[in-house]
């Protein structure tokens, strides 16, 4: 218990500092965890309470992701989402997998690293676009759709992660049945749910908290993918009233997610067997370069311009919450240390590159002659 309090106080202090300088907070929470925990001073260790609280953090992160998913909106913008998303997926998963495999990860571990390597942080991309006042850029829409695509991939990855005891087909049938029942309950209970959400006593928050935990417990009991179910449930509830569910679950998400990040750092052993510090640095650097390749490719294809690629790159370098979620759910020490290191390096470099993307772009790419002509014409 004292350990959790200590970790939280350190995080509070870090949040005060990082928010002041508009830096991403996630890498600093993980660094705090690394310093306090297994890899550093060994002041704080994980116990049953911290495990429960970190689990809550993960559940609310996933529930929030579910609320944000709007199937009709995705359907309407599918060409925008797919065109850039597939380039991003192909380039980064291939490079991530080859890099991880070459650095000595076993086959399955390398696939998991590749998945975490591919998924950029949606939270960091969005806040960097807003903080750096880049929303008007043509590229910002491309980046937003790219994040939507990655979110969908996250859901698919999470559906396959986690302990699975039954036959895959049995799991699929149970999952679909439960989803159908939940959907029906939400459809027919819509008015009652709205009535509860409109109240100003403890009912709305109690409802939100207990349904999220309830779905998680139900999934564990039935042996179906828990993360996937929580996300899907969030999406269903999002069709009723996304705003109020967001308002109700945000405090839980905010607090428990900080605990999730810091305890992820605490339990990670950077000096895990099978991976060396140079290998960790190598995969992190490759992660930055790989997004450069995909950013430029997307920029050239969609905006016919390498400078657009620089902006796309700048805002998608940072890996974050979902990469950590994948690591936490997979649970291998070697994979976790690689992903923790990669998240820290890419998110800090990403924040820096996004802030100075204009200058960095000029250094990396010479203005193309026809672009200059066009500017002169104007």
């Amino acid at each position, binding site marked *: 218990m004292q350990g959790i309090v200590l970790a939280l106080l350190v995080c509070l202090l870090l949040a005060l500092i990082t928010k002041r300088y508009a830096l991403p907070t996630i890498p600093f929470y993980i660094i705090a965890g690394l310093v306090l925990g297994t890899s550093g001073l060994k002041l704080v260790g994980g116990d049953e309470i911290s495990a429960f609280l970190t689990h809550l953090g993960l559940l609310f992160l996933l529930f929030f992701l579910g609320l*944000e998913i709007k199937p009709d*909106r995705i359907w309407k913008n599918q060409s925008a989402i797919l065109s850039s998303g597939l380039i991003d997926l192909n380039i980064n998963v291939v490079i991530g997998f080859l890099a991880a495999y070459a650095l000595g990860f076993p086959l399955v571990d390398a696939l998991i690293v590749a998945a975490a390597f591919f998924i950029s942080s949606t939270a960091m991309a969005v806040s960097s676009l*807003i903080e750096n*006042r880049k*929303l*008007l850029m043509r590229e910002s*829409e491309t980046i*937003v759709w790219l*994040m939507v695509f990655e979110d969908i991939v996250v859901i698919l990855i999470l559906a396959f992660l986690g302990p699975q005891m039954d036959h895959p087909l049995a799991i699929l049938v149970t999952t679909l049945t439960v989803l159908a029942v939940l959907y029906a309950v939400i459809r027919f209970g819509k008015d009652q749910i709205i009535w509860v959400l409109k109240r100003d006593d403890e009912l709305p928050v109690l409802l939100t908290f207990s349904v999220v935990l309830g779905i998680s417990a139900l999934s564990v009991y039935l042996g179906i993918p828990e993360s996937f179910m929580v996300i899907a449930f969030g999406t269903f509830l999002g069709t009723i009233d996304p705003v109020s569910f967001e308002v109700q679950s945000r405090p839980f998400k905010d607090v428990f997610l900080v605990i999730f990040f810091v305890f992820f750092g605490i339990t990670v052993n950077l000096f895990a067997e099978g991976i060396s510090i140079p290998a960790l640095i190598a995969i992190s650097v490759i992660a930055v370069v790989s997004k450069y390749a995909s950013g430029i490719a997307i920029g050239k294809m969609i905006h016919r311009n390498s400078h657009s690629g620089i902006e796309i790159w700048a805002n998608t370098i940072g890996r974050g919450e979902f990469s950590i979620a994948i690591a936490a759910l997979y649970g291998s020490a070697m994979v976790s240390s690689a992903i923790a290191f990669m998240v820290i390096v890419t998110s800090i470099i990403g924040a820096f590159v996004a802030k100075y993307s204009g200058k960095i772009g000029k250094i990396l790419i010479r203005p193309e002659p026809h672009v200059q002509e066009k500017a002169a014409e104007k």
Partner: protein
Amino acid sequence: MPLRSINLPGIGTKYELETEKQDTIAVFFLKSGNIQMYTLQHGCQTPSVAELSPPEARRLGSILTGAIMEADRESVEFAFSALSDLRITIHTYLVGKTIAGKSLEDLRIRAKTGVTIIAVSRGDKNIINPAADFELHEGDTLVAIGESDQLRRFERDIMVT
């Protein structure tokens, strides 16, 4: 003057307008509640950006719709088509320094402009049908009713003298 609006997941709603002179104005209603406004001059590469809080944005809105500086928040116009097109406008105004400390009687609002003050909002209290000797304070919000011409006169003669 094509206006484009799009909902950006995670960010908010974007409205983009290209003016006749090909300048671009974009307004983003962020999920945080704040509003970012971008203006991009034709031929320029980097936009200027202002971030506004909701009250600031409303104020900017009323300036752009042609209301005077002291006018705050929106007005409502009621049209009764059955009564030979009777149009009544209700407008809210923020009391500034110029008329603070005066009563409705001192200002002779109805006699000069034809406008009637039907309510005053002060802090979290509302005074409906204020008496003639009711004294205005700076920061009060007046709810005025009248024809749009009368309200215009009211803005010109009472609010900005």
